[in-house]
């Protein structure tokens, strides 16, 4: 038999034409990477909770308590939706989910302040979402601190005579809070970059898994068709991988450039640095997908296997749940998935403006994973060819 000249090209063309004919794979290769990032970005596009409805129980009914309430209402975080006459009424509104917090100003609020004593204001928040508690607490504590400073300056320490002295009494030390890289403190800017990377890896796994399962079904359990081009394991692995690799490099660039631009997500990375990070990431993901998929015998099985992994993998990246609090065992589990390094490297380059040198650890790990998974895949194909040859002899 004459040896084909460029087996890689043959395998590449074969795989490409198979995929174009298969709508199941196309869904995961085109539709999912194109549409899913948009959908996710839209879900979180509002970034944070604004004007959360709360209700107020004002037992004090004085000018000062009304001033307090007005200021709370003026914050961007919450909106005073209703005033209730007693706590029971307020609680009922909370049970009906019409308000998500209660601000209770006690009867002796004003008197205590005049007497120079501390007055306690109660904030009861619904914990349906942790974010509710965060925004309510932030709004109320900011107002309280501002009022406290006014009281301190104007009423208690009446000896301040100049504006400068007043300012000093208000702020003996000034503090600056700087939220780096995500200045609005938004949800999208925090979650979406990691999700984008995960979509790449998961979609790749699904595509490769489907195409492998399909070969297995068609060629009686073999992952390669019994034709003459499929004799060289190296060529097969590279040829097949090239299809997915190129496609998902495109998708990766679409996500990191277009989606990021459209939704105003953090965008500090240089294009070529992002590409430099995507190459090992997509390569490692491709070979990992080829390796794991070789355990799949029916094409639908890969959906069962890969889909639900997405959520645990997101947590293992250490972006959504602080990496410093991930136990060592799970860190080890996370270290076999490229997404763990890919998400971190991408977040750093794109959101924090780090250079490739700053994330050389992640890049190095991704190249190592690429190497390991490539060798494993090669071995598997090598044995598959042996099996195929053995069978064709029997036939």
């Amino acid at each position, binding site marked *: 038999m004459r040896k084909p000249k460029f087996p890689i090209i043959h395998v590449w063309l074969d795989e490409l034409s198979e995929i174009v004919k298969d709508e199941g794979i196309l869904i995961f290769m085109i539709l999912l990477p194109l549409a899913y990032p948009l959908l996710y970005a839209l879900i979180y596009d509002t970034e944070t909770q604004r004007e959360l409805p709360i209700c107020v129980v004002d037992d004090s009914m004085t000018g000062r308590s009304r001033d307090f309430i007005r200021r709370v209402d003026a914050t961007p975080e919450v909106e005073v939706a209703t005033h209730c006459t007693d706590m029971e009424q307020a609680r009922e509104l909370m049970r009906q989910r019409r308000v998500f917090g209660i601000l209770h100003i006690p009867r002796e609020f004003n008197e205590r302040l005049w007497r120079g004593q501390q007055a306690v204001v109660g904030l009861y928040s619904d914990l349906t979402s942790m974010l509710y508690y965060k925004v309510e607490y932030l709004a109320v504590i900011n107002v309280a601190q501002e009022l406290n400073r006014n009281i301190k300056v104007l009423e208690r320490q009446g000896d301040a005579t100049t504006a400068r002295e007043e300012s000093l009494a208000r702020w003996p*030390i000034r503090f600056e809070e700087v939220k780096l890289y995500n200045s609005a403190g938004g949800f999208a800017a925090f979650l979406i970059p990691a999700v984008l990377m995960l979509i790449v890896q998961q979609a790749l796994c699904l595509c490769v898994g489907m195409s492998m399962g399909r070969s297995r079904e068609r060629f009686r359990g073999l992952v390669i068709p019994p034709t003459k081009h499929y004799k060289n394991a190296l060529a097969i692995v590279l040829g097949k991988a090239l299809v997915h690799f190129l496609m998902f490099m495109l998708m990766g660039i679409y996500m990191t450039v277009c989606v990021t631009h459209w939704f105003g997500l953090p965008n500090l990375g240089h294009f070529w640095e992002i590409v430099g990070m995507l190459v090992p990431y997509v390569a490692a993901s491709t070979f990992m997908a080829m390796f794991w998929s070789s355990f799949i015998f029916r094409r639908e099985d890969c*959906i069962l296997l890969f*889909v639900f992994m997405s959520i645990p993998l997101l947590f293992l990246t250490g972006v959504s749940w602080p990496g410093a609090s991930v136990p060592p065992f799970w860190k080890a589990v996370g270290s076999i998935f490229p997404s763990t390094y890919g998400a971190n490297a991408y977040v750093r380059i794109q959101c924090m403006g780090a250079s490739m040198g700053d994330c050389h650890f992640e890049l190095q790990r991704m190249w190592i994973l690429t190497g390991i998974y490539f060798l494993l895949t090669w071995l598997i194909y090598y044995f598959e060819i042996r099996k195929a040859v053995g069978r064709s002899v029997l036939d």
Partner: protein
Amino acid sequence: MMREVRAFGRRPIFLMIMFVAPLGFLWLFTSLMDAGLPTKLPAALVDEDDTHVTRQLTRILGTMQETNFVITTKSFTEARQAMQRGEIYAIFRIPKGTTEAALTQRQPVMSFYTNDTYYIAASLLMKDMRKMSEMAGLAMTRAVMRAKGKTDAQIMGTLQPIVIEAHPLGNPHLNYSVVLTNLIVPGLLMLVIMLTTSYTFGSEWKRGQQKKLYELCDGNMVVAILGKLTVHTVTFTLMMWLFDFVFYSYLEFPCACGIPRMMLWGFLAVLASQGFGLLMFEAFPGQMRMAMSACSLLGVMQFSLAGFSFPVSAMYEPFQWLADIFPLHHYFVIYVNQALNGYSISYVWGSVVILIFIYLLPQFFAWRLKDAMLHKNYRE
């Protein structure tokens, strides 16, 4: 039904998904959020001033719950680089001349930087540093007032006239595990249920057995659906109940309504997820792969739309409607109402009705299933 049990034996992957995976999730998330709230997060301290006053300040900072200064340096650049390498989440900076300015009443400025691309870590550190900064200022005023002979009660009345007493209802320790583990693990199980439901129906077509199934149940779709799914229902419900026991009995998460009630809602969630999976299959009758794709695309999205990390009320309106079609969202609403707050179920009866409705809905479209059994073959 017995046919379905036998089918289990032929599909090891199925058993893995049904048993091993959910238990794995349980283990992963309970160990991940063991501490409830992440503590001692790495941060850097840039002390450019380096006097005894600033050192005293840093000692106080070091005792805070969330902060752990792993780097102490004089150079801000060094700290920033560590942040870009991902080693730390926050920087506290005391500029040169702080002590001098404080002593001569020239309002020194200190700054803290948090890396908000790591949202949870940054929020926690920000809280600590804010508290710290507020207290540092107050401590200076307190020293002056004590020198003037005021009592501590008088001082507190001046320094902090209005005190906010926060009551996070139902979860007083702000334990993230209570909000997340408790919903992500059942949520993943619900995703598994959706997928396996469309998978098991799809397999009939794939193996060309759909006509046999039709004969077996005499064309009665209720019998076919119940027969095929009862084994699943029982297994998944037991799994859900196991979760309930681990969460509320072993880990002692708050459960104001009692475990039996939560078991009931868990059962309902299992049924609704099966209904959802079957509905997807009926939307693409006989096309196992399309049904499973739809299940997975929608099923993964329900984690975002359920509203336990990012609240539904903060999303655009169309997404608020979309959230209503997902079983996980309703399970979440019921969970908050029942286990966390212990209110009466009458406040969220709508969610209960929708869960039941999602379970029953496929019965209305059973004719599509029947039609597919007789006329449709497996399509690649």
